């Protein structure tokens, strides 16, 4: 079955062109040109991934992004015309998994989409322990005791990447390659923002992290099992 992709963009020419590219790559595109209708379209199309323009009539792309995040963890990739720090960070903080800066080329876009839609990498063990929480790899679940912690697929993958090699310190570049599939481009803000979001969910005290530890000047590593 083809993956369904919801393209939310007010520029019909661009949306149509993206549609052509997606179809040629075997995806099934759905379209929405207005921010205020985006949620309805999201419910109707039940997409596997959302491509979301940041500048939309009706409702701001960032607003749409956080509305979708409230009810679903599906991958969201922002299409942004601005590479300015503030906008990108705002989009990532509102829940977007990744972003593509206009003008992008089709290969770049498709590569980003495929990375987000790929299945979670295989691991040898069924469950992993980080700090006082347990990752159920097969069930895509994270638990602290009996309480289930809701993570988006990206957050789960980020935590999993750290948990699989608890002895390893991951630089931001390593995480960008492993989780986001970047080989050259190194916008480390992606890692920073998502680590913040992940910590907000899994840490008991996000200011004093025990699960995702910072290694100063290098990167991150998983906390030792408690």
């Amino acid at each position, binding site marked *: 079955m083809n993956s369904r992709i919801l393209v939310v963009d007010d*520029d019909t*020419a*661009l949306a149509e*062109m*993206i549609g*052509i*590219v997606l179809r*040629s790559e075997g995806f099934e595109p759905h379209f929405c040109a207005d921010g205020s209708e985006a949620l309805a379209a999201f419910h109707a199309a039940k997409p596997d991934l959302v491509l979301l323009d940041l*500048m939309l009539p009706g409702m701001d792309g960032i607003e749409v992004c956080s509305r979708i995040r409230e009810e679903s963890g599906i991958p969201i990739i922002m299409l942004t*015309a*601005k590479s*300015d*720090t503030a906008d990108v960070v705002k989009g990532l903080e509102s829940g977007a998994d990744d972003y593509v800066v*206009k*003008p*992008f*080329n*089709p*290969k770049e876009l498709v590569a980003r989409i495929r990375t987000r839609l790929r299945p979670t990498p295989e691991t040898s063990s069924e469950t992993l322990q980080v700090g006082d929480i347990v990752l159920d790899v097969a069930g895509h679940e994270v638990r602290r005791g009996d309480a289930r912690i809701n993570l988006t697929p990206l957050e789960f993958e980020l935590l999993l990447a750290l948990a699989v090699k608890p002895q390893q310190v991951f630089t931001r570049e390593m995480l960008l390659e492993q989780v986001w599939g970047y080989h*050259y481009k*190194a*916008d*480390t*803000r992606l890692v920073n923002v998502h680590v913040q979001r992940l910590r907000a969910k899994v840490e008991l005290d996000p200011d004093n992290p025990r699960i995702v530890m910072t290694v100063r*000047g290098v990167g991150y590593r998983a906390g030792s099992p408690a």
Partner: protein
Amino acid sequence: MPGFSLRRALWRLVALWRGSLQLRTVAITVLLSAVGIGIIGSYMSLSVGNNLFDNRLQLAQDASERATVAAQKRFATVEGVVAPDLEVTMQDAYTAAAQAAATPSGTSIAILRTEGQSGPSSPTNRVTPGLDPDAVLSEDLRNDVASEGDVPQLHWQSVSLTTDGVTDPAIAYGSVLEVPGSGQYELYLVYNLADTQQILSFVQQSILLGGSALVLLIGAVTWIVVRLVVGPVRLAAETSEKLAAGDLEVRIPVRGADELATLARSFNGMASSLQHQITRLATLSNVQQRFVSDVSHELRTPLTTIRLAGDVLYDQRDSFPPTTARTAELLHSQVERFEVLLADLLEMSRYDAGAVDMDSEPTNLVRLAEVAIESVSSLAASTGTELRLVAPGGYFEADVDARRIRRILLNLLGNAIDHGESRPIVVYIDSDSDAVAIAVRDYGVGMTEASMARVFDRFWRADPSRQRTTGGTGLGLAISLEDAALHGGWLEVWSEPGEGSCFRLTIPRVRGAELRSSPLELPPVDPVPEREDS
């Protein structure tokens, strides 16, 4: 050191003196009025003293004359009488003189037989208890009195009386008494002037006190008056400092219609016009920034569509007739070029609008350089250029915006490959305690002096006829220069025609620190130095 601290105190005093008009005015006024009041006070005190003394002298003279006459009269009635009676008469005369010359602060009397006379030395001398004639009466006075002729005459002298350790000024009057049958005696009347001295002291004290109070009053008045004038001036100075520091809202309160109010009004007028201008410029700058941002968005969306369309066509070019295929290729490459140009233009205009932020983090520059070299390796391979990295000293971290430094490096490497004539290109990295430096050295065509001076200009090209492999926009070095400046660093160039070029980037290790020197020579010393690992 006391000498040193004394000098410092002196310096501070001088600085205070120079720094405060108020202090200076008050000090000069107080000093001058103190001198004036001092002169007037001294004159007053002197004239009052003289007056008092003359007065007392006159009184004393009158009293002495009376006393002399009274005492002499006693002896006139006892002519030709024997000694025992003379003693009584002498006592009588003494009492009469004491009565005639009595004063409130006391008069002492001495009746002494003139020395050097023949005959019996009776009656005996009479002296008021407490008076020591030898200590009080000088030799000169006694001689003057004793050597007097037939005409009775009064002699006087200022003396000092010491009673119970207290010395008082006094006047001594001397005259002659003729004692029948015995000879010449001298009558001395010593008038104590303690009460007069007391009055004089009191007057002097009053003058001193009044004068001091007057000086203080003048000082205070001057201080207030100067403050009235200096205060607004000082306020104006403080206000203009605040204005200069960027607080455009400050104004001087205007009171009344005098000169100071005029100053305040014109100052406020100046501040308002300044504020107006600055606000206008700030608005313009904001409009410019928003315009740039809007253009960015508006241009990029259609460009993205064109890009996607071009790429789709480009991917299928094999299935097109040759002319159409070539068209698709040209479209593809030129859209790419347009994109880079747009990005550079936007970056440049962001710098011009002052709307750039730095996203700095501790970065390993050697790793960054390795990645940059890696990413241009295919381009280098296409021209057969060898890329070398020389990084003695090992591991350096600096607080930089990695994206911008990478952009500078890629740009320098691209230029070096373009102009390097396929000869090796060496990237040097070194650091010291304050700074890190990266130099990109090529051994290609090099540049003339004139070219070097223009190399950072926008859209300037060293040789317009030269083939461009990297498809530079002409903005690369201009942006690199801005990127370096944003870090508080330097981007410098060395070049010789035929010898090649070297661009050296130096940035402070810590953000905001000032650069003094670069850890690398320009150009770095050849050949490649030995590694100094320990």
